[in-house]
């Protein structure tokens, strides 16, 4: 425990140092928790904007584990893929919000259950 206090520094470890599995695990745990909280939000909330916000939270959780794994393998591929995830998230936000605005104009409601007849 004291070791942690003694080595207070900004980065986890100076970059080229290898990161142990025991350091990787808590990051993955937080990422899994964030992902599932986003999933719960997507399932429970009725407001379409909040539902799409929850998908953004899931993207975010995926990005965290990508960066953590990338750091573990000492490569930049994880970070490169997070750039790609950001692109997809931005595209998704633009499309989703346009869709929400369109649906809101038709029914004057943001409720997902206002479009129940689409369930097939």
């Amino acid at each position: 425990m004291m070791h942690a206090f003694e080595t207070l520094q900004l980065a986890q470890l100076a970059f080229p140092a290898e990161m142990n599995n025991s350091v990787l695990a808590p990051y993955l745990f937080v990422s899994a928790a964030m992902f599932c909280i986003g999933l719960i939000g997507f399932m429970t909330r009725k407001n379409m904007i909040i539902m799409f916000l929850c998908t953004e939270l899931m993207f975010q959780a995926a990005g965290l584990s990508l960066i953590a794994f990338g750091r573990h393998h000492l490569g930049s591929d994880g970070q490169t893929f997070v750039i790609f995830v950001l692109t997809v998230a931005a595209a998704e936000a633009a499309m989703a919000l346009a869709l929400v605005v369109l649906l809101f104009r038709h029914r004057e409601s943001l409720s997902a259950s206002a479009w129940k007849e689409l369930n097939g």
Partner: protein
Amino acid sequence: MEQIISPIALYLICALGAAGVALALPRKGLAHTKDKAFQYGGAVIVASAFGFAALLMGLKASDAGNPMPNLFFYPFAFVAIGASVRMITHKRPVYSALYFIMTIIASCGMYILLSAEFMAFALVIIYAGAILITYLFVIMLATQAPTSDNEDDLTDVDAVAREPMLATAIGFVMVGLITAAMFGGIGELSSPKMTQAQAQNSVLAYLPKKVDKILDRAGLLEDGWAVSRDLDTGMAVMDPDARTIQIELAGKDDHGDDTVLATRTLTSEDWPEALAADNLDRLGFNLLNDHPIMIEVAGIILLMAMLGATVLARKHTELEDALKAAQARKLGTMFHDDGEPSGGQA
């Protein structure tokens, strides 16, 4: 390798987290103050459960002599999880979006701990600065805001959760399963394929000008000397693993042509501390050299999203038939019979 923490403790923590989320999810018919207490209490319970789990993992690692996460990891994780729970449970969409910004900033902190500085700042700019502002615009455009602070003014859409118990149970069973699976397999995770020196310096040979600048700043280059470049590839002649660099003095020969007058090799003792590729060098090189197609694909995705959003969000205005006919005539007179534009004189 044994489990990082015992599965029983893990499942107990997940159950505690599930109880916290179920408590905090919006419901009807609660007094305002009691409701607030439930929401904050739930978020704190969940965040504490996960903070406790992360601490347990750290202590277990510390017992086994393995390194712990940086101390700053714990507040960032606590804020990230607490704010994400507040985000999915808050009844007002604008506050949800603001709590999401908080989650993002906390995860940026974790990115910095993982030495991904560029992505951390890019995330603040792109997510908190651009995407979330768009969300806020749409929330404000598309929501009938309650007139007073009274929660009763909120519509059922925001104030009541759908199947809170079932969804929470499913979500936290998933957390338990994902984490148990990950921790079971984390022992078999392969160690990094490249050595530490490679990870830091493999890009340097592609950046001869940067090497020039750093060597010059370190006082290792006399006037006219520069790092030798490979004639075919333009790469610096160096061995990042052995930490040796070849430098040369360029000049003119008797006929006035460019030639190399002298070369020298800097050994690993001369290698300056500052000579290392930073995160941005490595990321940029990885992006442009190893994944060039990805940039094209990203560009196409963004273009399509822009087109799609424009098409979806535009307002359909109903024109009367007479007006449509007039418009068609107007367009028709703009062109001669051979299709040449007549200069827009309609």
